[in-house]
């Protein structure tokens, strides 16, 4: 542990510097207005202190120009704050770079379980390379958790029943705190760990070292066959369900006439609740039964990784 009292957090992602700049702007505005109020209060309170018990100050009703001034000027300032904050928020939450490397995260009371696409697993540790965009696909097995890396100025709640995705790009190697920021029960304050940012070469060595085991895709394929998904969802499209080759990330036409993108949330929903979105050309109600209770969040993520690989193969052919 470093000595001394830290007063400002380390900045180790592309977003951190931008958030800090906005923060300094906010601090400047806050200090200005706080000083304005404190100085006026002090000056008025001293200058106009009661000098005799019979003082009768003038009756001043107010001043409309002043009211307008101190409404409009703050309004302008807060709108700047809003626009600036919204721009960064949008970049942070919505604009995931296409080439981001995916890492899967599952929160459960009270640990973070992390799996890289090649199958490497870690608990309460996340290793990432410096200078590369990383996309986290996160799910919760039980209650709401929140994935928080202060040095990246990044946080996202992991709500059970849905996926949360975020991305970041680390700019500095080192070890940074990883916290659960949403109260999740007894061990909440122990649900923390470390993010280790490494040089790319070092990271590759780490990734392939130690016990790696099955890759996410392979595990997903195994589950796909084990649960019997492959009996209906045949690759050649002759099964009772639609072929899932090349489906991931593409638009899917539904029976209802809508079109949705086959993303992680769509796959998860279709596994747990097959009737929610039925593909055009297939019967409603569907003959597929729900897999609720038969598959864990981690298992679903593995199947998703497998389906993603089916799309990549198709693209490369």
């Amino acid at each position: 542990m470093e000595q001394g009292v830290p007063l400002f957090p380390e900045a180790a992602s592309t977003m951190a510097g931008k958030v800090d700049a906005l923060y300094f702007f906010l601090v400047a505005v806050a200090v200005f207005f706080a000083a304005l109020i404190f100085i006026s209060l002090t000056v008025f309170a001293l200058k106009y202190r009661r000098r005799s018990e019979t003082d009768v100050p003038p009756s001043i009703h107010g001043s409309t120009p002043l009211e307008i001034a101190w409404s409009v000027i703050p309004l302008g300032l807060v709108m700047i704050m809003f626009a600036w904050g919204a721009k960064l928020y949008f970049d942070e939450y919505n604009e995931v770079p296409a080439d981001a490397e995916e890492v899967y995260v599952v929160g459960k009371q009270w640990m973070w379980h992390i799996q890289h696409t090649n199958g490497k697993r870690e608990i309460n540790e996340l290793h990432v390379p410096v200078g590369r965009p990383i996309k986290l696909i996160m799910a919760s097995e039980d209650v709401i958790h929140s994935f928080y890396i202060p040095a990246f100025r990044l946080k996202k709640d992991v709500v059970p029943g849905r996926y949360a995705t975020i991305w970041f790009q680390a700019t500095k190697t080192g070890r940074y705190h990883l916290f659960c920021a949403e109260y999740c029960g007894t061990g909440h304050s122990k649900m923390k760990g470390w993010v280790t940012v490494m040089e790319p070469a070092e990271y590759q060595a780490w990734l392939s070292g130690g016990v790696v085991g099955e890759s996410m895709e392979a595990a997903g394929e195994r589950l796909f066959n084990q649960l019997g998904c492959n009996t209906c969802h045949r690759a050649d499209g002759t099964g009772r369900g639609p072929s899932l080759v090349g489906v991931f990330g593409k638009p899917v036409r539904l029976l209802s006439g809508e079109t949705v993108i086959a993303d992680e949330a769509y796959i998860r929903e279709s596994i747990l609740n097959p009737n929610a979105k039925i593909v055009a050309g297939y019967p409603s109600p569907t003959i597929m039964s729900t897999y609720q209770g038969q598959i864990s969040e981690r298992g679903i993520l593995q199947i998703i990784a497998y389906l993603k690989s089916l799309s990549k193969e198709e693209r490369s052919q």
Partner: protein
Amino acid sequence: MSETHSVLAHQFDDLEQQFEASTLGMWAFLITEVLFFGGLFTGYAVYRSQYPLAFAEGSLHLDYRIGAINTAVLICSSLTMALAVRSAQLGRRRSLIGFLLLTMLLGSVFLGIKVFEYSHKYHEHLIPGINFVPPHEFIRFHVDPQQLYVFLSFYFAMTGMHALHMIIGVSVLAVLVVLAWRGRFSSEYYNPVEVAGLYWHFVDIVWIFLFPLLYLISRS
């Protein structure tokens, strides 16, 4: 306690002020009630848009004929309540008591039918948490039983909360009957009857929304 036997409470200057105050008070309370049920309706709207089929299927498991009978009973009770208020305005003590009793009777009939409906659901194993077994066959849509469970949760939460309001309403009417019996009301002073009437109509209106939203959504 120096409550005089006059009907004018000490804090008011005259009966008109007292009447206006109690009516405004009841309206403010009804606004509160609107927001109370509003929370339930919001939840209902969210899930119905998420699970449209399950909600349609769920409503087929309710007997719309019973719901319709109950709607008719409640509308009649609103009529008798309005007649009770009118009797109070005209200072007709006996017809006031009569209409109040009739309103209570209709309210009790509503609650009795509700009890019958709930017990029927118990035998069908369709009460979430207490006795729930996913139905063997669905009536029209094959849906995730978990979603049917959500529909039934809302059905019981909403109708249960409504029934609770009915029970409170019937109890309030019972108190009014006693007061009317003792001759507390006159054409000068009848605002307890008036505000109880507002409450009763409100509870009635809530049911007018609940009935189509729960029983009729798949029958259009």
